[in-house]
């Protein structure tokens, strides 16, 4: 009879090879056969998706791929410079907490915005800085079922300054000129205009929610000529985000700005004054005013333009008052 000397360690390793790596409830090694390269048995095979730290493996992979493509210039922009990927994956996640948590935006009437095709959103403008435009745009992207991108039309001040110019272009906005507007509408894009312009953002606290003059109605001409619907939008909450209690005219002239807002926190608290007040926002989209039933040369009819200007202004003003009342208190 021969005796085979087997080291205890070898025996243990052999019996453990191919065994599940998990530890059972009573603290001992599971003795089931391991499956695949993961080394777990069917009972202990993790059914949850693979995680790397706090993230899912798939998320990490897609973040790495995004980083690689952005670093090597492998992305597309349209002729206006709109960078969809940048807007949706890099900027939208930054605006989201601001809109959802800080401003707690409530959206109403989103079904009035068509799923596709050109349109002209017309909104009130307030709050010293055009934060309302940004919140409206990213809110539309977030909450509209078709995830539509609003192409904001901005004043040339935005494009003159460094940093803001390219950023504005990359999120899809362009200069508020007839030419750019027609071109975009011709491509079926949804435009966003703020006819109060600087008079709106630079209103001052006493004039809050009182719509200023809507200019010469250039945007109406554009809509009539392009035969796209005018869609009124009322934004409540923007006035209190940066309440302008005074205008430092001298500083404005020095910097070449239309106004220099003084708020309860700016410029006294320095950079902290740049944090907006957490007002409650309500953005309501009203009934669209169609234009394609009108004659082709209707845009040249000054009376019609005047009348439609008043009509849309009234529509927005009514929505503002209604939503102000339903909002109740401003911040809570």
């Amino acid at each position, binding site marked *: 009879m021969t005796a085979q000397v087997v080291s205890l360690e070898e025996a243990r390793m052999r019996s453990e090879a191919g065994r599940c790596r998990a530890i059972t409830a009573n603290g001992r090694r599971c003795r089931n056969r391991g499956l695949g390269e993961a080394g777990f048995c069917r009972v202990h095979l993790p059914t949850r998706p693979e995680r*790397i*730290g706090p993230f899912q493996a798939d998320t*990490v992979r897609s973040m790495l791929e995004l980083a690689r493509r952005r670093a*090597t210039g*492998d992305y597309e*922009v349209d002729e206006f410079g709109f*960078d969809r990927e940048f807007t949706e994956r890099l900027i939208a996640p930054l605006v989201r907490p601001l809109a959802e948590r800080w401003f707690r935006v409530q959206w109403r009437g989103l079904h009035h915005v068509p799923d596709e095709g050109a349109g002209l959103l017309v909104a009130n403008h307030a709050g010293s800085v055009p934060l309302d435009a940004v919140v409206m745009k990213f809110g539309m992207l977030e909450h509209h079922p078709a995830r539509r991108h609003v192409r904001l039309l901005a004043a040339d001040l935005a*494009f*003159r300054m460094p940093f803001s110019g390219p950023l504005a272009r990359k999120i899809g906005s362009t200069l508020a000129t007839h030419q750019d507007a027609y071109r975009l509408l011709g491509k079926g894009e949804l435009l966003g205009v703020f006819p109060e312009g600087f008079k709106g953002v630079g209103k001052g606290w006493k004039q809050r929610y009182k719509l200023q003059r809507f200019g010469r109605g250039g945007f109406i001409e554009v809509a009539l000529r392009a035969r796209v619907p005018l869609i009124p939008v009322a934004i409540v909450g923007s006035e209190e985000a940066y309440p302008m209690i005074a205008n430092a005219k001298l500083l404005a002239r020095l910097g070449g700005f239309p106004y220099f807002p003084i708020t309860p926190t700016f410029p006294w608290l320095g950079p902290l004054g740049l944090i907006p007040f957490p007002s409650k926002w309500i953005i309501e989209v009203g009934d669209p005013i169609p234009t394609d039933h009108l004659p082709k040369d209707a845009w040249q009819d000054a009376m019609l333009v005047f009348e439609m200007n008043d009509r849309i202004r009234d529509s927005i003003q009514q929505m503002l008052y209604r939503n102000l009342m339903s909002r109740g208190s401003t911040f809570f």
Partner: protein
Amino acid sequence: MARRVLITGISRYLGGKLAQRLEKDPEVESIVGVDLDEPEVDLDRTDFVRADIRNPLIVKVIESAGVDTVVHLSIVTTPTRVGGRTAMKDLNVIGAMQLFAACQKAESVRKLVMKSTTAVYGADHRDPAVFTEADQSRSLPVGLSKDAVEIERYARDFGRRRPDVDVTILRFANFIGPDIETTLTRYFSLPVIPTAMGFDPRIQLVHEDDAMEILLRAVLEPHPGIFNVAADGVVYLSQAVRLVGRPPLPVILPLVTPLAKALRRAGRVDFATDQLRFLLYGRVVDTERMKREFGSVPRLTTRQALEDFVRSRRLRQLISPERAERWEQDVFAFLRRQGRSDVEART
């Protein structure tokens, strides 16, 4: 039908290449190239005349050769090459005036094809996002833009005085490609690419081959009018820098002009100061008219043209797309292994 062709600017890339292509066409009986310098390419049956087009003698050249098609390509875009801005303006504007005056006198001339540039539109923040041929810049043209606007005006005046002549004006976007040497190609070949901090212009290019196709067809076929010639698609300068694979050097606005002057003096890149606005605001043009008239779409988009340039010049890239992909896979594999070993440590 182009039979006897005169090309000004034959010593440059476009002129030389055009002559080569025309030589291959048996319908083209004779080709005359005019320039101050000799052509750089090998030419078979092209007659070279060393002449300054500002010299009225150019009439004799046109008449004696019985030229029916004049292709004007000698527009100078870089001041230092010719000895300064004044010399450049003189060569460009006076040269064009004399040439068109000569064409007006020569009865044999039936067609004029002129190389112009999208620089006629200028570059300004108040400009429309996309220029069509009917548009003008909001800002006053300076430098090359001003020259190009003036030359186009003379060409149009010439067209009015000789209504029997077809005038084709081609406004080319910035050229890019394996062979052509331009300010922009030298700019992208710098080891570090200076940009204006806070500005990111939209750039539209045209591949040298696509530009040549349009030019050739403009010469051989009747296409009177003004046409923007550019590739489809737009890239941002920041994107172009990444595609080229070189590190950018953001420079604050006040230092942009001094840096451009320094680079010019060092002989690296000759960016005319008045063209620096292009590096701030960029320029995009509409090419529907070109596509409708010539019935063709440029083969390569702006991005593809730039990628072709990078590939052919074998530019040493900091991060090539292949290396970046490998890094991505390596990093992911590393993180995954870390994740797994954490799970193992816990089990």
